[in-house]
């Protein structure tokens, strides 16, 4: 009896400590988010005068103005198009490559993998100019397809690295069974390996979605046409060279952060659920 009480109190104490720890970290994470949202509801002259986190002003029209003045409509759609096609491309291309590096044998595989890894590490300082000249020669400059291909390349190495690490960890038995059933290699990759890799695929999706969603410099350089620009470029207008319109900037930032948070909310379920299911089968 006594032991049971001791055990219970100990468990309670441990849980309390864990919660305290988690909550304190959570507060620091929530603070800038709240600050951003509260600031987006203020007026320009109040934003640095009234520093409390409790909003005294509710200027929801800031959001409407940000949307209209930033010309968000078109750019929002562009961003969604770029993000989804780049992420889709990366998931397919990098998971195929990572699967090959992890499971299949072919001459030069090790060297090719090392090259991808090296690419991940060497930053190319002048790459914008280089990419510009390259796209110009390929007649892909000022086209969405050129931008998408460049962005796929940006996420490729890291995604291959992430996926390969997890493929290496995964049990091979299921794949062997599928092979005996007469599945082709592509079939195994699609029907067996990818479903098992759901959690890490979710990480890859979130990681690349965030990169593409936040990119604007390359877009600004290669597009000469406002109608191709992604959302982040529109956002830069509020962050003027001299005058920054803080409420509109914060409203715009909140609007742009939202889709990524939604993507994460959708994906984090797979990070948790997907694997437990897979692992049970394995």
């Amino acid at each position, binding site marked *: 009896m006594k032991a049971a009480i001791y055990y219970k109190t100990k468990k309670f104490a441990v849980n309390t400590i864990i919660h305290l*720890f988690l909550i304190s970290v959570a507060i620091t994470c929530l603070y800038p988010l709240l600050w951003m949202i509260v600031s987006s509801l203020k007026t320009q002259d109040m934003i640095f005068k009234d520093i409390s986190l409790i909003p005294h002003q509710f200027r929801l029209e800031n959001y409407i103005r940000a949307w209209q003045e930033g010309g968000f409509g078109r750019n929002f759609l562009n961003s969604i198009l770029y993000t989804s096609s780049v992420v889709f491309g990366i998931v397919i291309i990098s998971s195929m490559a990572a699967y090959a590096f992890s499971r299949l044998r072919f001459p030069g595989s090790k060297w090719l993998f090392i090259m991808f890894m090296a690419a991940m590490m060497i930053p190319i300082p002048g790459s914008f100019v280089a990419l510009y000249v390259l796209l110009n020669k390929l007649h892909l400059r000022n086209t969405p397809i050129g931008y998408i291909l460049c962005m796929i390349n940006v996420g490729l190495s890291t995604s291959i690295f992430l996926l390969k690490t997890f493929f290496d960890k995964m049990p091979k038995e299921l794949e062997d069974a599928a092979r005996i059933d007469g599945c082709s290699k592509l079939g195994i990759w699609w029907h067996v390996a990818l479903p098992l890799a759901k959690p890490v695929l979710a990480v890859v999706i979130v990681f690349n979605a965030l990169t593409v969603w936040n990119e604007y410099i390359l877009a600004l350089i290669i597009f000469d046409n406002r109608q191709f620009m992604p959302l982040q470029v529109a956002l830069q207008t509020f962050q003027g060279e001299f005058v920054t319109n803080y409420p509109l900037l914060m409203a715009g930032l909140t609007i742009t952060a939202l889709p990524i948070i939604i993507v994460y909310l959708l994906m984090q379920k797979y990070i948790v659920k997907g*694997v437990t299911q897979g*692992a049970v089968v394995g």
Partner: protein
Amino acid sequence: MKIKEALENYTFVLPAAAIFSVFYVIPFIWVFQLGLFEWDGISFTRTFVGLQNFKEIFFQDKSWWQAMWNASYITLIALTFQNILAFMLAWACDREIKMKNFYRVIFFIPPVLSEVVVGMAWRFIINDIDGANIINRTLTGMGMPNLVHNWLSDPNTALTTVALVHCWKGFGWGFLIFLAGLQTIPRELYEAARVDGASAWQSFRKITLPLMVPVMVLVAILTVLGTMQVFVLIVSLVGGEFAGHTSVPVLRILASMRGSSRFGYACAQGITFGMVLIAISFIQYRFSKKARQ
């Protein structure tokens, strides 16, 4: 037959290799070549200088190596503090604990926020005159007013403060990958251990840690790459290199490229930087192989 199989296997890497060779290798060769030239980034002519740029980096450019050292310092803090924090949080959220879904969402907010917001919000928290000054007020409240000072403009604390904000911004990624890794560990293993009478600590050491080594290596390498290339956050926190105290390699490269219009030199710096990163990652990889055996 064997050739046919190899060809079949090649098709898996073909799309990746094709995009990679057009959009990475070609620009890379261009940059590598430029490292041997003197070029202002504008004119159509450039002067070949051989290894002169590299010589200057290695033997004269003290501020470059100071920047390297600063970046390594931030990376060291990120590798230890940030990753331990991320691992602990992931481990806590992997257990059956209340509100774990809530935490999982919250911890990913910092990576999502733009650097502009992070810089402004943290300047607000840290700064003396234009902000809430939360940290200094807390210190005074806790009876330690002698610790109060300008965290961002004191050369002794500026880099560490920047590093800690960077860790705060980045731990969400480590958290996510660790969580994904922890979730792949079959629950039966833990149950079997408990049946055998192992304590929580023992099963953590005997099951969790060894199975997580590859994921830790992955996170470590990604942390090194992400942290060594940090710069936007630094600009938004302290405006730039602060007399060298917060300078980092990417800021140096940008200074050569834009400030001084020394494009060729910037390329040489980029290549040197990449080589150092490759060396570090290789060492990490070797270490992890040993650790696993």
